[in-house]
């Protein structure tokens, strides 16, 4: 009796699982392409600039090309993995992940390049401009130790505080502080939103702060900041993450598509490959979202209505 049940169970198992291989790297999200609608899934990174890209792309895909767009909040590194598995179709703003590019684009060929976004990104250390006016020599890293006491906080434990934002962003700051022998402590605010809140609160009271920040960023329009010069960037100086002692590079931001989507994605894929705008455009939309508190859709509509000449070129013929 028991043996027959066992045999049956094994047989069922063999039937359901043994018939063929199931490659879980090629399984889309169960929520994609519902009811025959053509769906594009876009990754939404956590910073507003990249949300602006997604907002405009989503608006145009939905209103001009008749696609349904799903968005997934996902951090930079996991986004690469999801992109390769086809769980998302496109990543519109990548700040340079050489390891992932090597693995997924060159070796596995599951991710395809889709050209530049037209925006150049740069990460650096910044102090508020009112502080730089007070102490003009603060903008050179060699003088930072002299001013460490200005930046002391409860969390930095006797050293100066260098504020970092989200744990998911590209950062060499811990290594930089160590290798440049700076009397500073890297403190993570936990998220970019928390970092922005802190920057704005400090700026309101004109308090000194030193922060990891990046361009393009809408916040510069609200809180003017000046970059602190680090030892100049040379190609390859950041190859060994533990030994970095140079500034961050200027990175032309890149777009990536899932390889299958790039081939078979039709008009949506061609549109996303054509998508290319400027820092000013991105900042305009980002400022609408982050400062004027418009929803991404409203912000995108506003920009689309006033810049037809820019986006008309992106539509595939």
């Amino acid at each position, binding site marked *: 009796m028991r043996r027959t049940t066992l045999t049956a169970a094994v047989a069922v198992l063999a039937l359901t*699982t043994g018939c063929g291989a199931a490659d879980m790297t090629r*399984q*889309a999200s*169960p929520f994609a392409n519902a009811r025959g609608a053509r769906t594009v899934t876009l990754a939404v990174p956590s910073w507003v600039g990249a949300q602006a890209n997604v907002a405009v792309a989503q608006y145009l895909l939905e209103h001009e090309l008749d696609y349904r767009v799903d968005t997934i909040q996902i951090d930079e590194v996991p986004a690469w993995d999801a992109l390769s598995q086809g769980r998302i179709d496109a990543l519109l703003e990548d700040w340079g992940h050489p390891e992932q590019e090597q693995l997924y684009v060159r070796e596995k060929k599951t991710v395809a390049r889709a050209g530049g976004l037209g925006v150049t990104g740069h990460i650096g250390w910044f102090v508020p401009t009112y502080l730089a006016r007070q102490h003009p020599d603060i903008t050179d890293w060699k003088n930072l130790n002299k001013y460490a006491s200005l930046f002391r906080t409860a969390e930095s434990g006797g050293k100066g505080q260098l504020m970092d934002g989200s744990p998911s962003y590209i950062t060499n700051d811990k290594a930089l502080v160590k290798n440049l022998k700076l009397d500073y402590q890297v403190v993570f605010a936990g998220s970019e939103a928390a970092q922005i809140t802190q920057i704005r609160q400090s700026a309101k009271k004109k308090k000194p702060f030193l922060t990891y920040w990046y361009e393009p960023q809408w916040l510069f329009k609200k809180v003017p900041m000046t970059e602190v010069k680090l030892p100049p960037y040379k190609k390859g100086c950041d190859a060994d993450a533990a030994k970095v002692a140079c500034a961050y590079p200027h990175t032309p931001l890149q777009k990536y598509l899932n390889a299958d989507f790039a081939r078979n994605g039709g008009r949506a894929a061609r549109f996303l490959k054509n998508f290319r705008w400027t820092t000013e455009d991105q900042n305009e939309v980002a400022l609408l979202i982050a400062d004027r508190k418009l929803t991404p859709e409203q912000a995108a509509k506003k920009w689309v209505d006033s810049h037809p000449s820019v986006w008309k070129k992106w539509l595939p013929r």
Partner: protein
Amino acid sequence: MATITVFPSRLQLPGALRRPAVAKLAVLAVAAAVLVPLLNSRWTNGTWPHELTVSLTRPLTAASDWVIDNRDSNPLFLYFLGHVSNAVVLSVRAVYLTLLAAGWAGVTAATALVAWRVAGARLALGTAAALLACGLLGMWVPTMQTLALMAVAVLASVSVGFLLGLAAGLSDRLDRVLRPVLDTMQILPAFAYLLPVVLVFGIGVPAAVLATVVYAAPPMARLTALGLRGADREVLEAVDSLGATARQRLLTARLPLARKDLLLGVNQTIMMALSMAVIASVIGAGGLGDRVYQALASVDVGAALAAGIPIVLLAVVLDRVTCAAGERLGADDGRRTAGWAYVALAAAATVAAALAARLAGRLDWPDAWTVNIAGPVNHAVDWMTAHLYSGVPYVGGTADWAGRFTSWVLDPVRSALLWLPWWSVLLIVAALAWLIGTWRTALTAVLAMAATGVLGLWKPSLDTLSQVLAAVAVTLVAGFAVGIAAARSARVDRLLRPVLDVFQTMPQFVYLIPVVALFGVGRAPAVAAAIVYALPAVIRITAQGLRQVDAAALEAARSLGATGGQQLRQVQLPLAREALLLAVNQGVVLVLAVVIIGGLVGGGALGYDVVFGLAQGDLATGLVAGVAIVCLGLMLDRVTQPTRRRAGKGA
């Protein structure tokens, strides 16, 4: 070493040693007297010695890399895990498409009719109203995504849990093996379950569903086993004497007798699955949790609330409907009512509603019918941050309170813990656990605490521990106070009951939203969320414990002329010791779960490491932190574990 001073005089020693507590302390003191000088001479530094740590980073990174390299070629993935993942995707998709095809009208009609059948007209109305509210908030599609994911996860959890419970209920040996495992799984924070499944399945719905199943199946298994074992001996003997086979006995006597426990198991599984399905948004579950997560990342309280309200509504509706269904079934006594006619009618009504909506061209929830609450809520929050956040005359603002709580409570507790030499922390853990429990629990607690050090996470673990301690202290003071009030006054109890009911069914994730609005980002909001989450259970257990105190004992005290305060202090509280200890235990476990999630709102420490691991795809960091969380949970549970424990969250 001040170990000998425990005994003021030698003459008292034998008498004192007869008391078990003193004897236990004496043993520990002797052990400390021998070991501490030894350890101290080797490692003079107070923190966990580096030589005693084992770095798992390299093997874990290698494992993670291996998975990424092999998941599209290795047979294990292709022929087993791939199919598991595929099955999950297909079934979630099938449910989701069905829900979409039914449209909002069809889904609302169907759920209301089901609720009517199993739980009565009032709950049916409530269910329909809740679903329409989800649509009204513009959350129809995310709600359906969460429902689809939940449906699959609950089905899987209930079947897995039932089978495990069946095995444990029928075989004593399996019961001995399974029980400690299930007991432990019950106390682990949800966050600790996410990383292992991400390692294997990658970010996405399959991982989310599997994490949910692992989290939600244990209560079903526990309660099934409990129900089967609790069956009335006499009934079973009667069945035996009728010459029933083992199978007949199971199907006709034991399972029907365990019906109530089984239904309670289903109810608990559903609630835990909802809680987890929402947290799993961190690993790509999509749906409502994802909206909350996105909104929290940008501190957009309004949007978080718009997605949080449907979660709460779902939780309340699911809890009430399954509870009511359980009670009805219990009262029914297995009488089968003519159900087919109703089923057919309900199906027809559902199809009619779906078709009507489709013909009216309103299959999707119409955009025009949504109410945007994010704007007004954010205005309110802005007003609050502008006016209540800081600098309110005399009382200070909420941010000031948070700041003061951080610098006057959290920081001192943390520095005190870090200042204590590591061996003394272990000693304190051992002493507490042994005094309250047995030497077994003490040993587990010490080993678990030591494991966090071995993993190289001594400092973050103590940081998390300091948050837990601060939160538990506040929770217990407030919880005992309110619990005593509820036990002494029927009116307070009546007022509290619905509030506690709602609060106890809300998923952990939802609590993060209001605290971010009030206290900003950091450790204080994480602690505040933990307090609010753990409070209802503590209040409830305290009140229940006090009320169950023997009436005769109270009467006796009253006749001796004891005042109300004296009765409470000298009779009720001592007699309710067991319940109070249980309240402490539950409070600690619940607080830890939320303090960990606090990593999402700047809570730092172990929770942050898990978030970091997920965000950077650095699974080694995340997994090690996850293991440390497990150890910390084990330690806290064992330290506060009274000899007897009850099933379920806040039971």
